């Protein structure tokens, strides 16, 4: 598994500097009820390349598979309507050279994506080279594109990189497709769930299990700067926060605490972990610096203080406390000073998570027996509930701050059966709620940053 998670390296250059004004643009700040029609032409491969690639990957037509990855990504945003390939009039290879824009306009496509895939040998090793172009059909011109060379097994990531480029070009926001989600895979009866750490690509592919299920594991979270995660493990019945390197599989306990540590999260620079320490019936928030190994207590109150999350500039921490009698959301400076309650609506509030953009805090709310995922401004104003259900919690932001992923559990029937836990995602606008497919039941999702090169 180590090899597969190795970061890919490739030659990355733009075909053309991306200066040209596109007529096509999407406003994603509101719910998009009118998705943009887009055509993803199957990427073309010459016969020799096809054969070579089939030898390596056992895939007949890799170009077509890559276009499916892109199509799937774009469709799931709810912002694009991907048109049926059957309606395409122009062949992939010709379209990639010079599209006949009238043909694409005829099927009402406003944007066209074309590409080709060739096999290459560099220093006696197999590589694939993928070239992609983004066309504005109405403007009748190419608006973006690039080509890159990588090892064949990285082909899905190529699809994600292209999706990110298209999304960025058409919405003006950075993408979130070349990312992973770490979560807890669940199996077994509700009273004896077996839980494992699992990681998958954002689109549900390439699932890998990182623990065996021998001990209970909860709340994995990505380091925003590298391939480390922090999570809670009940190893030897001692619930403690751990640090795991998903490339090497090496793990260690974080800090030396005289009680249960839980609810860990990284600082934005990845150098610190904030978490709760529960001791003698009281939970306080602590921070541990992973470089200096200095740990420091940030809250000092006889109530429960937990679920801390840093602001993206690292200057503030939002957290959950029941010091007012019930769970509410608070904000303090990252040194623990200036504690201020920000949630004042009806119901109780938990799991505050600061948006990577810095302007919003996502939360879970329980009101009148229903659970909501919502967002509010960092001063507590502008509360907006995005989704309501029997049970759901644990929001995590996409790296561009446009989407929230969370988990939802079902109500059991009279016999206590029918329990399930699944991951769901929803746009910040409250539209486009989607089930995120996982191999097993799943909970506690955490979204990675963009993977970089």
């Amino acid at each position, binding site marked *: 598994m180590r090899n597969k998670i190795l970061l890919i390296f490739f030659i990355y250059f733009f075909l053309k500097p991306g200066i040209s004004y596109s007529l096509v643009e999407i406003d994603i700040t509101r719910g998009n009820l009118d998705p943009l029609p887009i055509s993803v032409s199957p990427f073309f491969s010459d016969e020799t390349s096809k054969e070579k690639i089939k030898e390596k990957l056992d895939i007949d037509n890799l170009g077509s598979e890559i276009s499916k990855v892109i199509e799937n990504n774009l469709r799931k945003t709810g912002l694009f309507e991907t048109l049926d390939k059957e309606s395409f009039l122009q062949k992939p290879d010709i379209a990639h050279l010079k599209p006949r824009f009238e043909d694409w306009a005829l099927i009402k496509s406003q944007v066209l994506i074309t590409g080709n895939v060739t096999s290459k040998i560099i220093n006696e090793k197999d590589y694939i080279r993928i070239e992609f172009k983004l066309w504005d059909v109405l403007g009748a011109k190419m608006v973006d594109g690039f080509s890159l060379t990588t090892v064949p097994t990285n082909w899905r990531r190529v699809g994600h990189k292209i999706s990110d480029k298209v999304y960025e070009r058409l919405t003006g926001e950075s993408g979130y497709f070349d990312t992973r989600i770490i979560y807890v895979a669940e199996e077994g*009866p*509700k*009273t*004896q*769930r077996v839980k494992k750490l699992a990681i998958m690509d954002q689109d549900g592919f390439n699932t890998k299990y990182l623990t065996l299920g021998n001990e*209970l594991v*909860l*709340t994995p979270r990505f380091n925003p700067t590298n391939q480390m995660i922090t999570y*809670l493990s009940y190893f030897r*019945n001692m*619930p403690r926060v751990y640090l795991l390197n998903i490339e090497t599989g090496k793990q260690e306990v974080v800090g030396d605490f005289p*009680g*249960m540590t*839980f*609810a860990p999260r990284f600082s934005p620079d990845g150098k610190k972990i904030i978490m*709760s320490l*529960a001791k*003698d*019936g*009281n*939970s306080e928030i602590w921070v541990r610096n992973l470089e200096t190994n200095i740990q420091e207590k940030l809250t000092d109150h006889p109530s*429960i203080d*937990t*679920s801390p999350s840093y602001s993206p500039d690292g200057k503030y921490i939002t957290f*959950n406390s*029941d010091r007012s009698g*019930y*769970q509410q959301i608070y904000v303090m400076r990252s040194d623990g000073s200036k504690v201020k309650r920000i949630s004042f609506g009806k119901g109780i509030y*938990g*799991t505050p998570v600061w948006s990577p953009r810095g302007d919003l805090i996502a939360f*879970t709310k*329980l009101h009148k027996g229903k659970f909501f995922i919502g967002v509010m401004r960092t001063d507590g104003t502008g509360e907006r509930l995005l989704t309501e259900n*029997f*049970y759901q*919690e*644990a929001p995590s932001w996409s790296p561009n701050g446009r989407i929230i992923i969370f988990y939802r*559990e079902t*109500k*059991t029937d*009279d016999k*206590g*059966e029918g*329990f399930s836990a699944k991951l769901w995602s929803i746009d910040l606008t409250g539209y486009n709620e989607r089930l995120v497919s996982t191999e097993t039941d799943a*909970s*506690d999702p955490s979204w990675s940053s963009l993977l970089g090169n």
Partner: protein
Amino acid sequence: MNLSKILKNAFLVVLFGLIVTACATKKSVKTTEPSSTTTTTTTKADETQKADPIQKLDALMQGDVYIGSDTVGELASGVPDRVFFATNETILTTASRETLRKQAAWLRQNSDVTVVVEGHADERGTREYNLALGERRANAAKDYLMTYGVSSDRIKVLSYGKERPVDSGSNPLSWSKNRRSVTVKAN
């Protein structure tokens, strides 16, 4: 607290339970009456069945604290292993204190035994908060055991939050059984 007081408390709890049960029975009879006059015998049977769980619920819960014996195991003969809590609460009820005094007495007699007090929460709360709440509940029980002469180094606490429910139901009765602390022998 002396024995007569304990007996009095226990008597009050039983008496209260009886009153509640009686009330519930009365109510359920009342609700079945109108339907039985207008509908067939099969629906009459259905109605009685429907009324049953409600009647049971009143006998098994006081406020929203579980007072039944289903799921309750024994730490030792005649010593119940667990106590129950109200939603979001860590306060020990009269019945809980009685159970814990029995546990403490038994632990004083068996001084070589060490225990783990497991703290649990129901599924109606966020995972992380429930981990803290479970720890607070387990410590409430631990503190009480200590007050009755069990030394702190014999008692470990372990919070499971909502991770280990005993009842998989999604209803108030199931949740009340899951809001608990359980004293388990560790050696």
